[in-house]
C-alpha cells in the first residue's frame, strides 16, 4: 500500500517566479507559449474528468431512483429513501457487525503483529539473516488475493489439505474450515497476516533506523536490559509513526478488502462473511439495485471519513502530532 502522505509542493524552489510570469501578458500569450504542454496535459485531464470525477457525480444516484434508460440526470429524486431502506433492512446490523468485527480483528491483531515483527527484525544484527527474512516475508504482498484464496483452498481442502489434516488431528475434530462460519474470520485474519504483515514492517523499520543510538548507550550504562530499552527508548522513538499508521489503518477500517472477502465467501458462510463491500457488489451488480447499493457505498465512505478525522483529532488531543 502506498501511503498518501504527500507534499505536492515538494521540490518547488522558487514560487516567486511563478507569480512573476503570471503578471506577464494575457492568457492567450501564455497559452500560445505553452501550447505543447497543454496538449500533453489534455489526456490526463480528460482521464481525471471521466474516470475520477464523473463517478463522483454519479454518486448522486444514491439520492435518486436510477433508471438506466433515463440516465443519471433524468432519474427522479427520492431524497434519503435508500438510506432509510438500508438502515431499516435486517441486513444492516449484520453487515455492520461483520464489517466491524473483521476491522477490529485486523486492527487488534495484524497491526500490532506488524510492529512486533519490525521490532524483532530490528534486534537482528546478523545482516544476512535480516535480509533473508525480509526478502521472504515481503513476497506474499505481491501476490493477488486470487492466489492467496487459492492457496487457502488447497491447504484447507476437505480430506486432503495439509492444514485440514493437521489442525483436525490436533483438535480431534473434522471441521471443514472453508465453509464453517466459525472459522471464517480466523481464516481472513490469517490471510491478512500472511500477506501483509511482512510488508508492513518496512515503514516501521525505516522509523526504527532513525531512533537516536546514543540513548541506547546511555540506557545500557544505566543498566537497562533489552526489554526496558525497547519499552523506554525504541517504542517512544517510533511513536509518531505508529500513530500515523494507526490513523491510516482506522481510516481504511471499513475497507475490508472486497477481493479477499468475495473470494472466501460461499453459501455456507454468508452469515458472517457479508460485509459492506461485498454487499454493494451482490445487491448492486448482481441484482441491479444501483441506487440502493450506491447509497450503501456512500454510507460506508462517509463513516470512513468521519473515522479518519475523528482519530486524527483524538491523536492531537492527546498531544501527539496527527496526520494533518
Amino acid at each position, binding site marked *: 500500500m502506498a501511503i498518501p502522505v504527500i507534499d505536492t509542493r515538494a521540490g518547488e524552489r522558487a514560487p516567486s517566479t511563478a507569480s512573476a510570469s503570471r503578471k506577464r501578458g494575457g492568457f492567450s500569450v501564455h497559452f500560445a507559449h505553452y501550447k505543447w504542454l497543454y496538449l500533453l496535459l489534455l489526456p490526463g485531464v480528460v482521464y481525471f474528468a471521466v474516470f475520477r470525477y464523473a463517478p463522483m457525480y454519479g454518486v448522486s444516484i444514491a439520492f435518486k431512483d436510477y433508471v438506466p434508460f433515463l440516465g443519471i440526470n433524468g432519474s427522479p429524486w427520492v431524497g434519503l429513501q435508500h438510506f432509510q431502506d438500508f438502515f431499516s433492512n435486517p441486513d444492516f446490523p449484520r453487515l455492520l457487525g461483520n464489517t466491524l468485527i473483521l476491522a477490529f480483528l485486523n486492527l487488534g491483531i495484524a497491526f500490532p503483529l506488524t510492529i512486533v515483527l519490525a521490532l524483532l527484525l530490528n534486534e537482528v544484527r546478523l545482516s544476512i539473516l535480516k535480509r533473508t527474512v525480509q526478502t521472504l516475508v515481503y513476497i506474499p504482498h505481491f501476490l493477488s488475493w486470487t492466489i492467496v484464496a487459492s492457496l487457502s483452498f488447497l491447504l484447507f481442502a476437505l480430506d486432503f489439505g495439509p492444514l485440514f489434516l493437521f489442525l483436525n488431528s490436533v483438535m480431534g475434530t473434522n471441521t471443514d474450515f472453508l465453509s464453517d462460519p466459525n472459522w471464517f474470520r480466523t481464516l481472513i485474519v490469517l490471510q491478512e497476516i500472511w500477506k501483509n504483515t511482512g510488508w508492513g514492517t518496512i515503514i516501521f523499520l525505516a522509523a526504527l533506523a532513525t531512533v537516536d543510538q546514543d540513548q541506547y548507550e546511555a540506557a545500557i550504562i544505566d543498566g537497562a536490559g533489552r526489554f526496558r530499552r525497547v519499552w523506554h527508548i525504541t517504542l517512544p522513538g517510533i511513536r509518531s*509513526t505508529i500513530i500515523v499508521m494507526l490513523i491510516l489503518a482506522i481510516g481504511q477500517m471499513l475497507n475490508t478488502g472486497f477481493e479477499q472477502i468475495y473470494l472466501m465467501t460461499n453459501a455456507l458462510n454468508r452469515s458472517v462473511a457479508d460485509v459492506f463491500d461485498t454487499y454493494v457488489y451482490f445487491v448492486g451488480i448482481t441484482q441491479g439495485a444501483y441506487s440502493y447499493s450506491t447509497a450503501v457505498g456512500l454510507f460506508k465512505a462517509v463513516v470512513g471519513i468521519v473515522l479518519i478525522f475523528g482519530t486524527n483529532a483524538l491523536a492531537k488531543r492527546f498531544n501527539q502530532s496527527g496526520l494533518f
Partner: protein
Amino acid sequence: MKIHNTTGGRIFDAANYVFLSLIGIVTLLPFIYVMAGSFANEAEITRRAFFVWPEQFTLSAYEYIFSTPAFIRALVTTILVTAVGTLVQLALTVTMAYPLAKKTLRGRQVILSLVVFAMVFSGGMIPTFLLVKDLGLLNSYWALILPAAINPFSLIIIKNFFQELPAELEESAKMDGATEIGILWRILLPLSKPVLATFALFYAVGIWNDFMSPLLYLSDNSKWTLQMYLRQVTAASDLLGTGNVDPTYIPPEQGIKFAVIVVATLPILIFYPFLQKHFAKGMLIGSVKG
C-alpha cells in the same frame, strides 16, 4: 548497539533468530507445497498430507493445462492486457506529470488539487461500473486498463522527479530548438528510466493481479483473465452461490489447480527482486515522519 554481552541478551538473540527463521520458512511453505504438488501425480497429492518434493516427478498437470484452450486464452489475454495496459497507463501518467512539473504553467495548482482530492474521494464501485457501462466498455479489455489508468500517487511522485531534474538541461535543449515534446522524449525520459521502471512494475503488478475489474466488467467468460480462470479452477465448487462459476464446468483434478497457481505466481516471483527493491523505496517516499 554493539553491547549485548549478558546471558539473557544472548538467549534472546538466539531465540529471536530461530523464531524469525521459522517465520521466513512458514511464509514460504505454501509455495513449496504447491510447487511440489504441481509436479506430483494425483494419487500422491491425495495420499500424502504434506510434501516439499514429489516422489514421482510428472509434468502431466502442465501438459494438461497447456493443452486447454481456455487456459491458454486466459494466459495470453492476461499477458497482452498487462503489457498494453502498463504502456498506456505509464504513457498517460508521464504526459500528465511533465506539464505539471512546470511551475510557470497556469492552472497547474488547480489541477494538482483536483488530483489530490481524487486520492481521497472516489465515486465507488457502482457509479464507476455504470460509467464503464455507459461508455460501452463492458466486456472490453479497456475496462481493465482505463478506469485505473493514472494512479494519483504515482503521478505526483513522477512530477516531483521531473521537477528536481536540473533546469539547465531543458534550457540548453530549447536553445537548440527542441520543442517541449522533444525535450520530454529525448532528454527527460532517458534520464528517468529507473523511476519509470519502478512505476511500470507498479502498474504491471496491479493489472496482472487485478481480480475485481474483470469480475465487474467481463461477464463473457471467453474473455476471462488468468485471475478469473484461477478462481474458477480452484473454487471448490459453486457452493458459493455467487453466480460467477460456470455451472456446466466440471471441476478439474487436484494437480491442475496446483499447476495453474504456479503459472499465475511465476511472473511475480521472476520479477520479485526488482519489485522488492523498487516498491520498498516507493513506499517510503514522503511517508516517514520519524
